[in-house]
């Protein structure tokens, strides 16, 4: 049994929230550069250049790369041999988000009572927390600031098994097509297949956390990712939606066993400010 102190968790979550918002991952920057080299529309190229310049400014001047510093989604992988001391784990995470959003000058974008008063909670809490119990005695914390422009384009499709892979392709391409310029292309498309309705949406979001350019280890899934990428980029939406061949930097697919009657497909679109940052305690 190993002890992990809540104070350390709070401090870590605060730092992750700030770093994720200030520093675009090397994998995303590399993908933007590759997209630029691959060629696109003249206006698309200008957009990609501006996004790379923006990432440089944000990193060097330590400011948020996007004004939508997001809903803070926190993934925890808690080792079953670890012992949390000094408080309640979720309180420690919420305090970390509160502190990180204040100290990092990040925008507070959460409103309580979403369909009535919409009063701002003023500290960007609550975070959405997903916890998985894993072997071992460590705690992996991942903070994902998720902007609403892309999150609003999420879709759930409960297909029937007969629709198969063609049905999956049809709905994923439809979701990206209908999203059009709204989610800040070039995007990363997270696709979940299988499980239940709520699980497939979580799978779709988790698919966004895989490093860009790293295909699914299963060859069949990797082939599907490739085909979906081709189909999505053939739409012509392009960077910022101004037209071009780079609509998505990647399509990431994750799957899980499904019920004999079901073929759930979840789509979660990630904007070009593809932010997430992890630390293992």
């Amino acid at each position, binding site marked *: 049994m190993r002890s992990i102190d809540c104070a350390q968790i709070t401090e870590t979550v605060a730092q992750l929230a700030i770093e994720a918002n200030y520093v675009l991952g090397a994998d995303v920057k590399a993908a933007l550069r590759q997209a630029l080299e691959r060629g*696109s*529309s003249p*206006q698309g190229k*200008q*957009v990609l250049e*501006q*996004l790379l*310049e*923006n990432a440089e*400014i*944000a990193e060097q*001047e330590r*400011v*948020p*790369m*996007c*004004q*939508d*510093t997001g809903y803070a989604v926190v993934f925890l992988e808690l080792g079953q041999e670890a012992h949390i001391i000094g408080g309640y784990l979720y309180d420690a995470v919420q305090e970390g988000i509160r502190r990180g959003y204040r100290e990092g*000058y*990040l*925008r*507070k*974008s959460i409103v309580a009572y979403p369909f009535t008063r*919409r009063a*701002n909670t*003023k500290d960007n809490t609550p975070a959405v927390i997903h916890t998985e119990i894993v072997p071992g005695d460590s705690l992996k914390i991942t903070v994902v600031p998720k902007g*609403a*422009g892309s999150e*609003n384009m999420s879709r759930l499709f409960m297909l029937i098994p007969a629709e198969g892979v063609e049905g999956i392709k*049809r*709905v994923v*391409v*439809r979701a990206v*097509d209908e999203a*059009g*310029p*709204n989610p*800040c292309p070039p995007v990363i498309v997270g696709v979940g297949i299988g499980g239940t309705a709520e699980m497939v949406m979580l799978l779709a979001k988790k698919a966004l956390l895989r490093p860009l350019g790293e295909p699914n280890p299963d060859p069949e899934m990797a082939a599907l990712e490739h085909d979906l990428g*081709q*189909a999505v*980029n*053939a*739409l*012509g*939406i*392009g960077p*910022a*939606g*101004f*037209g*071009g*061949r780079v609509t998505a930097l990647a399509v990431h697919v994750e799957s899980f066993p499904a019920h004999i009657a079901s073929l759930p497909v979840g789509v979660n679109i990630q*904007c*070009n*400010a593809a932010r997430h940052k992890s630390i293992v305690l």
Partner: protein
Amino acid sequence: MKISAPFTEEAVCNLKVGDAVEISGTLYAARDAAHKRLVSALENGHPLPFDPQGAVIYYVGPTPAKPGQVIGSAGPTTSYRMDPYAIPLLAAGVRGMIGKGGRSPEVKAALQRYKAIYLAAIGGAAALIAKTIKAAEVIAYEELGPEALLRLSVKDFPAVVVNDIYGGDLYERGKQQWASPSEPSSGLRG
């Protein structure tokens, strides 16, 4: 092409879909909650907190300014959420809107009717865009926090014309030009 805000009718008539512009002058920052209040003021016959004649509204909710900064990061938010409020503001004299993403057919028709334009700023380029904002002050609805109504003074603010007064749409044109013919759209839609 350089252009001053507020926009004149003549300037708007000269702008076409796809034109890249650099805007200098005054913009008003407003998003969902501020729009709701502006339209409510118009419906109740109250004056707006700014002169709408030729005014240009930027759909933005910036991050808090760090010490020494004029404004935090300030990229565009998705515009379709403002569609339900746009037409009364255009009728009141607003001549330009800046955001990102497509507009409803009703808003596009109103742009032609009122001789106004819709422009896109680059979504995600918030730190870069903030450098063109030279001054910012809250002029109303301070209690809305990141959704307060701001007056912004900008120099060479970069934007691209998406919908002009002639019915053009950059997003539609871009897709038509760049969609791959090998992927017939009929096979892609459900």
